[in-house]
């Protein structure tokens, strides 16, 4: 097991800089998820750690060894690719053994590790098949098997589940989490799916356009997003963002009314963020408004109600599945100031009510 330390890591392709000096400490034994929208540089960062992409500037250390000039093969890590990248002309068994035989490992040790992986991943009966004879989920297992036989210090995953259908994705997510619990090896996992990130990570790194927006546990990211990007990226459905104006320590939230912020915010523009479950239905809260339901998404145990405020703005509100809402219903809403998030004009979190 090893941690990974990124120090001012930069990646450019000629004139185009895509990673802008990233500092990051990956703790030994943690499951770190890199998440962010498409094109933000997740894969690039992972591939630099893997040794598949040159590091333009800065250093990357695995354990306490700087690996900038170390070829991928000697970094003692395994990687699972989005495309699986199984060798199409080799049987599953050969796919698993290929890396080990390159390392000149004794035959019986290779045999032992391969059959152990086959047992763990329940791919015993697939061992003599070629990749083209496998389903997507089975290919994924083989790809993971190829990673674990190496018994590396570090696992890298680049969107390993994104080619699977929804049901299988959930199942593999559970299996990967189980694998992590059993092996306890450091894992760095790239995804653009924030649900995957939230459910599997010990810590999440949110990336955007080659910068780190925030690093933290899933709970920290959800309850204390440090900027509007993280606030809207983490959590599904998205946080409702309402622009408002502060004057003399008081924010006037359109449709709802005034909240005294107690000097935590300078005068000017502000964004008030409210997650769908943070609205209260009814008019018992400190500031309230009337709204009209425009759409209901019923999910069984819960429902998401799209509702129009008097100003015409539509917000999303979560309610229990047993509630009854119909399009056109009147819906009174309350906003609890302590439950809301506040962001300044530069989209950074204001630490109001955070204590």
């Amino acid at each position: 097991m090893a941690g990974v330390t990124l120090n001012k890591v930069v990646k450019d392709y000629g004139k185009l800089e895509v990673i802008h000096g990233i500092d990051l400490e990956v703790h030994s034994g943690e499951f770190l998820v890199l998440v962010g929208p498409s094109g933000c540089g997740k894969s690039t960062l992972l591939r630099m750690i893997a040794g598949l992409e040159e590091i333009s500037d800065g250093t990357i250390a695995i354990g306490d060894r700087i690996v900038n000039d170390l070829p991928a093969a000697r970094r003692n890590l395994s990687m699972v690719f989005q495309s699986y990248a199984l060798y199409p002309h080799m049987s599953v068994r050969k796919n698993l053994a290929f890396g080990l035989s390159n390392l000149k490992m004794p035959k019986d040790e290779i045999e032992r590790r391969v059959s152990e992986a086959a047992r763990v991943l329940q791919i015993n009966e697939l061992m003599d098949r070629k990749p083209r004879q496998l389903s997507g989920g089975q290919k994924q297992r083989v790809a993971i098997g190829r990673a674990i036989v190496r018994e590396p210090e570090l696992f890298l995953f680049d969107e390993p589940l994104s080619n699977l259908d929804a049901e299988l994705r959930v199942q593999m997510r559970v299996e990967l989490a189980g694998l992590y619990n059993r092996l306890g090896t450091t894992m760095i996992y790239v995804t653009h799916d924030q649900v995957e990130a939230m459910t599997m990570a010990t810590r999440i790194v949110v990336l955007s356009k080659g910068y780190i927006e925030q690093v933290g546990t899933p709970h920290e990211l959800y309850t204390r997003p440090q900027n509007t990007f993280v606030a809207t990226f983490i959590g599904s459905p998205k946080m409702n963002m309402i622009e408002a104006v502060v004057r003399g320590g008081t924010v006037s939230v359109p449709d709802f009314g005034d909240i005294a912020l107690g000097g935590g915010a300078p005068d000017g523009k502000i964004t008030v963020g409210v997650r769908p479950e943070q609205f209260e239905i009814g008019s018992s809260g400190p500031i309230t408004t009337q709204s009209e339901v425009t759409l209901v998404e019923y999910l069984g145990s819960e429902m998401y109600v799209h509702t129009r405020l008097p100003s015409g703005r539509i917000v999303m509100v979560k309610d229990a599945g047993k509630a009854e809402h119909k399009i056109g219903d009147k819906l009174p809403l309350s906003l609890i100031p302590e439950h809301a998030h506040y962001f300044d004009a530069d989209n950074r979190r204001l630490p109001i009510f955070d204590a």
Partner: protein
Amino acid sequence: MRDYLQKYGAGYVFLTPWAIGFLGLALGPILASLYLSFTQYDIINAPEWVGLENYEYMFSFDTRFYKSLQVTFAFVFLSVPAKLIFALGVAMVLDKGIRAIGIYRALFYLPSILGGSIAVAILWRQLFNQDGVVNAALGLFGIEGPYWLSDPRYSLYTLVVLAVWQFGSPMLIFLAGLRAIPQDLYEAAEIDAASKPRQFFAITLPLLAPVIFFNLVLQMIEAFKTFTGAFVISGGTGAPLDSLLFFTVYLYNEAFSFFRMGYASALAWVLLIIIAIFTAIAFYSSRYWVHYENERG
């Protein structure tokens, strides 16, 4: 019937030029030559049926026939692997380097277009003459070049080099094949600690096998049929000492120097059968070394 014609009639009309060409210029002569191979025919007098006499003579008494077979086989076995290896090498360099630049690829293809022509064969003769460019270049290093073309020990090799020089079309096919191998397989292999040679032998070659096979069959047939270069460089006779007596050159001489059309036809059929046998061997062996990506089973 009417419906059928209405529906497909136009298709058959479009087919006629090809059909006329095929029947008149290919199938007709092929069948005619099969008939002629059982005759004696000097173009002036009507063909005279001789049964299997041409074939009997060929296999029992004709030493030049065996000589021409020997020259042709030597050429095929030397030039085809050399050309394929060279073409693959160039394709790999191009695949890595100057990727998108079409002009380079056109440039590499040029010899293949020119190579088959008489002009280039003549140029080749100049290059490898005893006082040609090649020997002049060797002379710069103090090496006295041999008589490439008139020494029977070397003459065949100049033709092998001429053949290799026409690597363009197998190279392009290799290049397309290399492009079709997903890059992430190499990345996975990189992480799997496979050295570059190991990547070549364990990944590139097996995944390229269908393309290698295709090129092999095509080039083999091409090599068996080689004519222009050998004809021009040997002055049309297979000289020196019959060392360039390619099967096709011998056949040409029989037909158009000695007007033994019947015998030439028999030679042509023997060549056809030889090519068919080797192609069949290649196809049969491919089961054991060619892996097709999308095949079931």
